[in-house]
């Protein structure tokens, strides 16, 4: 029971991370195309400014929870995926620094450097996380000892790449929706136009990815064994349709929340389909790392559950407060006020 609870929590942490940092990553990918001048660059950056750091901590918490609750999985997952995780790490480092450094020097090449590293630092995590999760859904070649028999190219298989493209598009739409809500004027119009175009691409890729998933993984089969879980892909699909519907009706916050539903639904669909595995082996199912062969002791799981049940709601409460306090659109005028301090 404890193991299953932690498995669910593990999935929820990832889902929340993708939902929150998803818009930062997506907007980072789109910024070079949406922002046409210095002012717009700064507006786009500042729509994420008060949030991105807190959002990224959900990733660290998901990683930390893997370490604490399923150390056997954490050890194998992180060492098997060494190269992609190092790339993810460097990308996140560059992204984080770009937010802080970009404005600190008023020289063209300096800003371009940080704009580029912000773009790479946003695109690469979206892509890598998609590739990594698709590979996890399909299983990776790990043996009994947890040794990985492959390299980076093993992970860049068609299904893995499809997962990467899916994440990039999913986050891009999510980010464009955020901007459409948080900016005004031309920037908002451009964001809405981008959403309408990208939504078509996203829908095609999403359908293809879901179909591909039928052949490349056993997620659907696992889900069909517990039909109530089909609610999860249903939420994802409803979210995707809802996004477009609300955009057409110019109800942009509702569209953003619908996009949240797509992300959470997709993530939980994948995670539920994995159960009880956290990292399936493609060599032999008995080598898979699961919630029942890599978990921590009942004592540790109980203590951590106590901490999570108290602290996660507290975190959600104060982060919601921050989102509420900074809900107003970022404009040229508000930028000037911020700088005056």
């Amino acid at each position, binding site marked *: 029971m404890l193991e299953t609870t932690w498995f669910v929590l593990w999935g929820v942490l990832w889902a929340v991370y993708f939902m929150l940092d998803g818009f930062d990553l997506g907007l980072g990918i789109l910024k070079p195309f949406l922002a046409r001048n210095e002012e717009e660059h700064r507006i786009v950056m500042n729509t994420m400014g008060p949030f991105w750091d807190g959002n990224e*901590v959900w990733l660290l918490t998901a990683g*930390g929870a893997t370490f604490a*609750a399923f150390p056997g999985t954490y050890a194998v997952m992180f*060492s098997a995926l060494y*190269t992609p995780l*190092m790339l993810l790490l460097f990308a996140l480092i560059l992204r*984080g*620094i770009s937010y802080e450094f970009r404005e600190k020097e008023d020289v063209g090449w300096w800003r371009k450097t940080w704009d580029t590293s912000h773009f790479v630092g946003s695109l690469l995590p979206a892509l890598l996380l998609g590739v990594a999760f698709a590979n996890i859904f399909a299983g990776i070649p790990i043996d009994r000892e947890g040794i990985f028999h492959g390299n980076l190219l093993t992970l860049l298989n068609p299904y893995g790449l499809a997962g990467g493209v899916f994440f990039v598009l999913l986050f891009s739409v999510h980010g464009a929706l955020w901007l459409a809500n948080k900016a005004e004027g031309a920037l908002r119009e451009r964001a809405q136009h981008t959403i309408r175009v990208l939504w078509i691409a996203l829908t095609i890729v999403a359908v293809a990815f879901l179909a591909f998933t039928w052949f490349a993984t056993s997620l659907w089969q696992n889900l069909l064994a517990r039909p109530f879980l089909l609610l999860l892909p249903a939420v994802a699909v409803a979210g995707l349709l809802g996004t477009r519907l609300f955009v057409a009706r110019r109800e942009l916050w509702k569209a953003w929340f619908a996009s949240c539903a797509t992300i959470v639904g997709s993530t939980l669909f994948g995670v539920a389909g994995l159960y009880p595995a956290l990292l399936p082996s493609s060599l032999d199912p008995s080598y898979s790392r699961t919630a029942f062969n890599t978990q921590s*002791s009942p004592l540790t799981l109980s203590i951590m559950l106590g901490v999570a049940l108290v602290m996660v709601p507290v*975190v959600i409460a104060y982060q919601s407060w921050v989102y509420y306090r900074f809900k107003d659109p970022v404009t040229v005028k508000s930028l000037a006020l911020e700088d005056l301090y």
Partner: protein
Amino acid sequence: MDVVSLSRLQFAVATYFHFLFVPLTLGLSILVAIMETIYVRNGDEDYKRAAKFWGKLFVINFAIGIVTGITLEFQFGTNWSRYSAFVGDVFGSLLAIEATVAFFLESTFIAVWVFGWKKLSPKAHVSCIWLVALASNMSAFWILTANAWMQHPVGYTIRNGRAELTDFMAVVTQKFAILEFIHTIGGAYILAGFFVVGISAWHLLRKNEVQLFQKSFRVALAFALVFSIFEILQGHMNAEILGTTQPAKLAAMESHWETGRGVALNLIQWPDAANERNSIQAMPIPRLLSLLGFYDPNAEIRGLREFPPDERPPVLPSFLSFRAMVGLGFFFVAVTAWAWFRRERIMNSPVLLKILVWSIPLPYIACQLGWTLAEVGRQPWIVYGVMKTTDAVSPIAATQVGLSLIAFILVYGLLGAADFYLLFKYARKGPVPILAPAAAGREVIHA
């Protein structure tokens, strides 16, 4: 090089680099919070501008501290997977708790503080920086508790081929953890104090914003003085506890070879590890080592020869880092005490001000030395007495680690250079000048 050496080197690079930025975060958050609190309570605009000025430096420093912290969490899994699988039950939970109770708070409220000057009431705004200070120091507590467990494992049993938690409270309340935490944050406060004192001194030498920098100087000097004295008295306890918890580290840092009673402390000595002796040994103070270690002039201190050669830490780095750290510790007391007695006449003490400017890097060095002693002195163990470092490494290819190590050196080198460049630039620039209302209006239009 093999995977173990490369992974150790990579961990050393990542940790040293990370800890160039962490101590300033721990200490400067408190100093900024104090300055902003003074402003909120008595309305002195100097303190508001000071809080903004130091806050800007804080944020530049904070950014790198945060992102390089991610590296450490990743590395336990990527490079030390056998360690992670073996200790995750105890160690992993401490890291996860750190993220949930501290890191979220820190990362969320620093942004609110930066973006909230106009959006929040002064009281709510100053609360944010206090939350950041609280959270970063809580974060240090959990991380150091995890490290203390590697230094002195307690509250666990070996079951199912791994270390399993049996007593959580024993892990988080053990004396070793408390001492390590206090000593580390003490060092961080000294560093932050010297940072603010030193930069203030630089501006005072140039008669720039004298009023504001005298106020900053006062606050930070008191802070640095108190914690310099505290660190010397308290640091003794960290050495003393090694007598019972890590005798090999104690012997290595004192370069003490032969087990004996009533051991002297040599003021001058130089270890010769190959021949298991000291090549230079002079000015002994009789029985002092026994007295310091066990409060008994006749106490027995175990020498390095008692440990098999493959269970001794590298002697020279342990010895040198310890001596240099302690030497710096005494220097910090001396220079802050001197400055305290001259505080009313500080503008007439250019030599002292110059010394204070040049002292800024010294606490940085002391902090790095402290970690060198803690980590090198623990070798060959990753968990003292339980797991050797060589048994902890991931089953991965050396080329992978070699490439990532090169990438770390390049990326960290560039980021470090950019960060210190910005710190210097904004430190020299000084606080934003007070604008006349008309000028302020123009600024809005041109921003």
